[in-house]
């Protein structure tokens, strides 16, 4: 096992700070309660002011892209769940859309609506985790309990429709795993009515809270030019006044048929991004409402026998079904050669999936374009000359998930 000590230890540089004190090199290390995962920042401090930041990542590198190359096309869905573990269905959607584009297959409208429902539910649950953990880092203890109470209802819905709380693997190339059960639709209906009231509770807790406003207004300033140059996406770029939302600019999976607003604010700081995420949760509930009211009926999977196993009862009667079933579960299907890039809007920003196929039954290369990996690079520009305590608010507002960064 590589016990590298070189990259681990830190040496204290000796330059002098502004008021004669020496720069203290502090390790905002991998095991830290407020880094939203195993992020490590080597920070040079002059008193309490940050003079330089050097992010060190890779402490959660799981080799997901190598694992996807060793699995078959339908098996790789399981791996896509786990790199951005706060929005698993959205990762599945990126991978599924990419494979379907390569196969030249179109998913029936009911499956598209169910995919939109699961994506919006995941966006809400991802924002709830962000709000809860960012709040508790800045001292707002009770917001965590409120947020995770609602997140439990979302996870109960995930479990109802796919049998799994977090990594649902619900969205697959060729459609979705199973149709929505009536109980799921009833839970979703109650959720869309109650959630706006809960969001009002969060707003009462934080929006006018003087401590919260003092800790977030004017902190983590990212100018529109910086956001555009650094390639930030999601609330990071919308927080700087650029209304770039992939669901509007490059719509996918039927998003153009829902009307919702893109939450932007030109405050360019943590408070602006907090308001954006709260508004995004309200917009997500509006989309869920529309999707539920206009849920088309029909099949939920493509009826392409090469891609998806035939229904169980057909196995007794038709011989082709048995052959398809056997071939699918021994070798899996093969995708025509080519490469494609599909980008979807996750809670953090643009989560894309670049898939290269060489015609065999295993992908040649699966590259996940992760929003957190790019937004983390904006951290250095936002946090310079801030206090070390504001560093916590800035890491929080970047909403990086370290599984997504390290893949």
């Amino acid at each position: 096992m590589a016990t590298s000590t070189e990259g681990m230890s830190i040496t204290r540089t000796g330059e002098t700070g502004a008021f004669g004190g020496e720069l203290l090199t502090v390790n905002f290390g991998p095991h830290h309660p407020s880094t939203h995962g195993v992020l490590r920042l080597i920070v040079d401090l002059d008193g309490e002011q940050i003079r330089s930041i050097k992010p060190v990542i890779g402490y959660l590198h799981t080799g997901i892209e190598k694992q996807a190359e060793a699995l078959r096309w339908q098996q790789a869905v399981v791996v896509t769940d786990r790199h951005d573990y706060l929005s698993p269905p959205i990762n599945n959607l990126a991978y599924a859309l990419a494979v379907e584009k390569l196969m030249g297959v179109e998913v029936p409208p009911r499956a598209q609506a169910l995919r939109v429902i699961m994506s919006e539910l995941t966006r809400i649950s991802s924002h709830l985790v962000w709000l809860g953990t960012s709040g508790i880092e800045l001292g707002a203890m009770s917001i965590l309990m409120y947020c995770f109470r609602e997140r439990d209802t979302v996870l109960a819905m995930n479990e109802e429709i796919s049998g799994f709380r977090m990594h649902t693997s619900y969205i697959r190339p060729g459609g979705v795993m199973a149709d929505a059960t009536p109980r799921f639709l009833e839970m979703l209906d109650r959720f869309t009515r109650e959630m706006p009231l809960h969001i009002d509770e969060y707003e009462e807790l934080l929006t006018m809270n003087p401590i919260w406003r003092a800790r977030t207004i004017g902190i983590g300033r990212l100018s529109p030019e910086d956001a555009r140059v650094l390639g930030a996406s999601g609330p990071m770029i919308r927080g700087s006044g650029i209304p770039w939302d992939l669901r509007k600019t490059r719509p996918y999976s039927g998003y153009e048929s829902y009307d919702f607003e893109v939450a932007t604010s030109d405050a360019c700081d943590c408070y602006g991004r907090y308001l954006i995420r709260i508004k995004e949760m309200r917009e997500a509930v509006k989309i869920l409402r529309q999707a539920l009211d206009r849920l088309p009926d029909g099949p939920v999977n493509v009826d392409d026998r090469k891609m998806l196993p035939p229904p169980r009862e057909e196995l007794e009667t038709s011989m082709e079904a048995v052959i398809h079933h056997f071939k699918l579960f021994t070798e899996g299907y093969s995708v025509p050669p080519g490469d494609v890039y599909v980008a979807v809007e996750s809670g953090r920003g643009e989560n894309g999936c670049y898939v290269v196929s060489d015609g065999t039954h295993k992908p040649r290369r699966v590259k996940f374009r992760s929003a957190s990996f790019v937004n983390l690079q904006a951290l250095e520009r936002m946090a310079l000359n801030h206090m070390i305590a504001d560093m916590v608010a800035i890491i929080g507002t970047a909403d990086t998930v370290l599984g997504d960064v390290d893949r």
Partner: protein
Amino acid sequence: MIRQDLIVERGVSAGDEWVTVESGSIRDALAELKNEGFRLLVFLTCVDHLVDGSRTWPARFELVYQLRNMETREELRVRTFVDGDPPHVDSVHDMFPPANWDERETYDLFGVVFNDHPDLTRILMPDDWVGHPLRRDYPVGGEVVEFSEEHERWQTAPDRA
């Protein structure tokens, strides 16, 4: 769009436009595209075409630059093929800041050296890791699963499997 002499090949794959460029002139091509409005580098990665029968590849490593024009919402994929051990290509971190970490990751996982990159060190793997994991001749590793039919192949490189 960009000067004809730079383009080696052009095509559309599953709805995405792509252009192949000589590996030596990657900087000029990207500079030109940037002036035309493709200011955002969505991602940069590498694909290893060892033992890839789907097409005859000019070289083993294919570097992929995905560019996007935020105003007209167009996307263009620029490819270039490099070879050699280790393969060398010019860095574009000054034109596209996001490329800084992408290039470090591509160096870390594929071993592609980007000339005059400010800090070309490993970003994901431990600093003293040997080998570049995402190359096709690097075994998937992990523990050998007993009684699995890929018991032997799991450890050996694909071309000797």
